[in-house]
């Protein structure tokens, strides 16, 4: 019974191919949009989650300069208010598990005929444990290298690509940073993009002492651009932030009601904001796509209503030879469902294809989850039932004699 009705629904759809196709197209576009948008949205979330994970957890960054944007104050990080002793003092706080002073700057680097302008980070070995960053080959530099300001460097994968290409093993090679020769001791693992979109692998990391003396030598001795500090665990984040503020204010002799000459940034909170933004965007995309799905559903309802009117006589004939209201209802409901489900299958295919295309063309990260496909499918099926029900029940409630007389 069900199967023969299904094949009948198929035939009825075939009777007016163009119309069926156009009705289906509404569904195809709706489902395709949902699948595509969800793939893009979830991809973005995934990519942000990964960069947050790559950043390290429970992190603060203490920057020199005020966080205030008013007045003619120079941008944070530009003055030289923080120094190595501040860093050590922060490290002594009870709530802080690890710390790393950081000096940064861009410099011209040269290997053989290749050169590039690359961000240079000077820091101590604890930086790597805070950021959960290890070498892919070679080894990290040591505290001894920091103490004696050795000219050793760790290079990121992007730097390796730019300077050495695929064929040369960079370990043991000497590159020139600002004309000083540095020995490459290790290649860092790939980290990908940071959540603010920078390529974290386009970097060279050297001991902070070397950076201060040989690369950014015009600074006040011992000054650092920023300090990275890691709270012992998530629950100490609040206490630690206050502790750092109080400590540095005290060390810098800043009186009450005066602005600090440094700022403390909670990276974990910033990351959470970024991830919330991505989630909101993803939901927004999904919502917009759902509207097209709704429009597709209304298209089905519209066509089914036309179809019921056109086939009133057929309904009358069927009733005259024994079709019950339920049979007629099921027949038209099934037709609406077949249209929406076939449309859905094509839409899922198209959405997946579109997602792969976006990945290829734009390079955006795409995440196709079974969940989104199942969701699109069940929504499409329920749209078929929901928007098909009214026309179908209209057909089923026709009185046999009136349906038969309909011209």
């Amino acid at each position, binding site marked *: 019974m069900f199967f023969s*009705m299904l094949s009948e629904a198929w035939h009825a759809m075939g009777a007016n191919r163009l119309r069926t196709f156009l009705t289906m197209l509404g569904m195809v576009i709706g489902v395709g949009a949902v699948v595509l948008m969800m793939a893009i949205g979830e991809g973005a979330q995934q990519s942000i989650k990964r960069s947050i994970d790559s950043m390290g957890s429970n992190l603060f960054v203490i920057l020199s300069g005020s966080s205030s944007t008013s007045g003619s104050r120079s941008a944070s990080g530009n003055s030289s208010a923080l120094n190595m002793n501040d860093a050590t003092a922060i490290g002594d706080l009870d709530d802080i598990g690890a710390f790393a002073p950081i000096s940064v700057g861009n410099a011209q680097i040269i290997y053989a005929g290749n050169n590039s302008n690359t961000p240079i980070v000077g820091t101590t070995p604890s930086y790597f444990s805070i950021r959960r960053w290890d070498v892919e080959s070679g080894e990290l530099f040591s505290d001894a290298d920091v103490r004696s300001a050795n000219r050793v460097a760790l290079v990121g994968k992007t730097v390796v690509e730019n300077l050495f290409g695929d064929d040369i093993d960079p370990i043991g090679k000497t590159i020139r940073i600002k004309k000083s020769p540095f020995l490459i001791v290790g290649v860092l693992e790939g980290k990908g993009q940071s959540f603010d979109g920078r390529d974290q692998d386009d970097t060279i990391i050297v001991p902070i002492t070397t950076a201060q003396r040989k690369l950014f030598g015009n600074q006040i001795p011992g000054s650092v651009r920023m300090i990275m500090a890691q709270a012992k665990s998530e629950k100490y984040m609040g206490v630690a932030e206050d502790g750092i503020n109080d400590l540095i204010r005290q060390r810098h002799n800043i009186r009450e009601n005066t602005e600090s000459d440094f700022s403390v940034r909670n990276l974990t909170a910033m990351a959470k904001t970024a991830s919330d933004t991505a989630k909101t965007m993803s939901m927004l995309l999904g919502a917009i796509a759902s509207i097209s799905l709704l429009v597709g559903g209304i298209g089905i309802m519209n066509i089914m209503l036309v179809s019921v009117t056109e086939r009133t006589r057929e309904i009358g004939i069927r009733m*005259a030879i024994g079709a*019950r209201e339920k049979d007629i209802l099921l027949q038209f409901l099934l037709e609406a469902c077949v249209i929406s489900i076939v449309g859905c299958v094509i839409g899922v295919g198209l959405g997946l294809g579109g997602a792969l295309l976006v990945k290829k063309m734009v390079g955006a990260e795409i995440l196709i989850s079974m969940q989104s496909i199942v969701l699109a499918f069940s929504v499409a099926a329920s749209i078929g039932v929901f928007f098909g029900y009214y026309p179908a029940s209209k057909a089923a409630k026709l009185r046999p004699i009136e349906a038969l007389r309909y011209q």
Partner: protein
Amino acid sequence: MTNNVIEITGLYKDYDTPAGVFPVLKDVNLTIEAGDYVAIMGPSGSGKSTFMNILGCLDRPTKGEYKLNNQSVKSLNNNQLAALRNRTIGFVFQGFNLLARSSLVDNVALPLVYAKDQKELRTKIAKNILERMGLGQYFESRPNQISGGQQQRVAIARALVNQPRIILADEPTGNLDSKTSDEIMKIFDELNQIGNTIIIVTHENAIADHARRQIRFLDGKIVEDHRNKKELEKA
């Protein structure tokens, strides 16, 4: 228990029109025995087709009692009426009323679909009955590929497929030429001979003469009800 398949007492049917209530059938009383062959005649607008639709459970009377096989139809719900139309009554229309998109086999098998028979069985029965109607080579044809007489045979085959005991035909030869009409009437004659009750609406005397009983409607009432003269002479 009587041998009456149809018992109608005090039947009225009104139509609500914009101009007011329009009575089509007024106090119709009629009893039809099993196995009878009845022609219902009358001019256009006399109510004979409306009466036929009520007999066929396609329409409900406004007032009055209609007993089909000693069961009052008034108390039945729509599903039960559908079951009657499916199994107890076979209806043949003037305009054939075949489904244009379906093959002849599918058309004939359609009542079996609603009777929930299996597909193989449905096809077998439908083909069998089409063969008996002389349409063996047209199983997969569409209705518009065959002649009017052939289409009416298909419609009769469809009416017979669930083996109803009562066959109602509303002007079954109205769209056919006289030669084809004769062929169709022969089918009804044969069906009556094997025991089916046949009721035919017609305005042609030649068709009515096939029946054993002739009833004439005028202005919504039965004005004549007699045995066929030929029949009487035979007896």
